[in-house]
């Protein structure tokens, strides 16, 4: 069995008094790709937000172990520096902040935390050049402000580009496929696949089996009303696509 990167045990979480996650358990090992599927409003983005440490969520029960220690007490930036990356469902725009500058600052924070020397502008640009090829991303986007005026698809691509630069240990992709056309979907998926190693792991949130044709998961989990009601291999996604969520609910 591979080394465990993330262990979620009976996690309960809510927001403003509303219980959203009602006992989620999930274990992710190095080298694995997990998919989480589930109907709208079932708590998928909430799970991602809680894992990334977003403010405003109350953890009311359970625990999360990341890299062998408790995750919940860490600030979001500490989690990020330890290699936890969230590709947002809705990436925000930061007007006036140059994308390259932003990414360099981010990478250097992560490097500092690892005890590595910071990269200067030239060294960073070399890293960028290398990764630009990987994702077939127009370099123009990097000259613009962070996500500002990017199309929906460009934003998603830019997220994966950030992932490529930051080389996370655990990447959580929240509906990265939504808003992508077929060609972009291929490019992004190929990028994600190239970023996969034996040391890292990916948690892919999606509604569509389509994405999983490209990013092939080792495990599929079905989240309904804040609980994982079924887990299985990649064929579970196909079954869901054919039968819908009702089938699971009835079976459960």
């Amino acid at each position, binding site marked *: 069995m591979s080394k465990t990167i993330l262990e979620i045990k009976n996690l309960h979480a809510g927001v403003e008094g509303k219980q959203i996650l009602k006992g989620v358990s999930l274990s992710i090992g190095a080298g694995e790709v997990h998919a989480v599927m589930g109907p709208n409003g079932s708590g998928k983005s909430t799970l991602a937000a809680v894992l990334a440490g977003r403010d*405003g969520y109350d953890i009311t029960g359970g625990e999360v172990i990341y890299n062998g220690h408790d995750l919940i007490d860490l600030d979001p930036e500490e989690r990020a520096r330890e290699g936890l990356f969230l590709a947002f469902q809705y990436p925000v725009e930061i007007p006036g*902040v140059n994308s390259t500058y932003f990414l360099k600052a981010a990478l250097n924070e992560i490097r500092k935390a690892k005890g590595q020397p910071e990269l200067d502008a030239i060294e960073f640009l070399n890293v960028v050049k290398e990764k630009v090829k990987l994702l077939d991303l127009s370099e123009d986007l990097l000259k613009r402000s962070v996500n500002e005026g990017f199309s929906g698809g460009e934003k998603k691509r830019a997220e994966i580009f950030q992932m490529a630069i930051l080389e996370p240990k655990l990447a959580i992709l929240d509906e990265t496929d939504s808003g992508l056309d077929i060609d972009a979907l291929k490019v992004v998926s190929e990028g994600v696949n190239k970023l996969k190693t034996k040391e890292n792991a990916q948690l892919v949130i999606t509604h569509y089996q389509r994405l999983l044709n490209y990013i092939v998961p080792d495990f599929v989990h079905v989240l309904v009303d804040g609980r994982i009601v079924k887990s299985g291999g990649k064929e579970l996604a196909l079954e869901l696509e054919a039968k819908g969520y009702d089938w699971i609910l009835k079976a459960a």
Partner: protein
Amino acid sequence: MPTATDTIEDLVKTEYKYGFVTDLETESAPPGLSEDTIRLISRKKNEPEWLTDWRLKAYRYWLTLEEPTWPKVHHEKIDYQDIVYFSQPKPNKNAPKSLDEVDPKLLETYEKLGIPLRERERLAGVAVDAIFDSVSVGTTYKKSLAEKGIIFCSFSEAVQEHPELVKKYLGMVVPYTDNFFGALNSAVFTDGSFCYIPKGVRCPMELSTYFRINAAKSGQFERTLIVADEGASVSYLEGCTAPMRDENQLHAAVVELIALDNAEIKYSTVQNWYPGDENGVGGIYNFVTKRGLCKGKNSKISWTQVETGSAITWKYPSCILLGDNSKGEFYSVAVVNNYQQADTGTKMVHIGKNTKSTIVSKGISAGKGQNSYRGLVEIKKSAANARNFSQCDSMLIGNKCGAHTFPYIEVKNTTASVEHEATTSKIGEDQIFYCNQRGLATQDAVNMIVNGFCKEVFKELPMEFAVEAQKLLGVSLEGSVG
């Protein structure tokens, strides 16, 4: 996990690093304002009679005025009899003749502030005039400027050495009848900077004035007059700091800029007067009148200001676009945190044909700060084809602060075009979280987001100043978000 709002409150703490007091012997007039005080100031400065008379006229006019109440700021009534109107470092009765005569402690103060006065220590080509309390303490680079015919000296010195220029231009743009604080300044101003760029000369270096209030209870009333003759150009920088004191201190300056035909003046300010503590105690009242006159055709005046300090800021650097084809610009970043209040903006008065003005204002409010943009774009009947573009953006950090916009537009010529855009945004928790998620600490995220917001203004600042302004912004907003 704490909520964002809690942490915002926790962290609204700002350190003011310029808050030290220099222990100098000073010679001060007793507090209070009367014709005698004004005569004393004028005598101390060995002024010609016309100037004494001008001051007295201003004073008598001031007595008929009421302090304005229209700015959206609140403060206890100012007791004008409790202010010291004249304070200067001993023993020099007059401003020192050379830097060697300047008290070493004073020089040390400036070095602490990062303004080395001594020319040999100057790295960049910035000529500095420094005003300490009310007296100018030395002007660097004077000689090399003089070779080009440029006059850059303290106001007092200009009165002695170039009375004809002072007499010609003083009050041309801001007459003593202009407003309450302008009149007060005209009556009691003690020093300031004077700058004259002769015809056709491009000033080869940035000129700079540094203002410092040191003495307790003293007000600072400086007067700056910059004249760019035909075809001349100059870039001028102004910086200011003050010690931390519990009482409020009044700073009521007047700046007049005059650009003749084809002349250009760029005036940049980084204002960092002591803002008061996190409970709103102390801090400078910065009630300033700044105005430029584009007197000649094709002239241009550009104001750039970064306002981070002062308990209350009340200032509207303005342009009167008299000459045909003249241009006025106003780029502003105003930051309020804790209990700071700012009511700032500009007036662009279009009189000449084809005159153009640009206004870019960025207001940032944090803590319990209140930030108002107040601007007037006035197109007179004579101003055919006048153009104005205004953009006023406000950013809120936390939910106890306020942003207000008061744009006034008066158009009397139908060929004019006036465009106004305004936005208000809250610094998004989602933006901060996004940055956090990429490994950036919250304070760094805020700085980055705010600097991005201010980018259009910062790019107008001279390089060195832009770097300082960015740092200052960081310090001002330290702890404004959790």
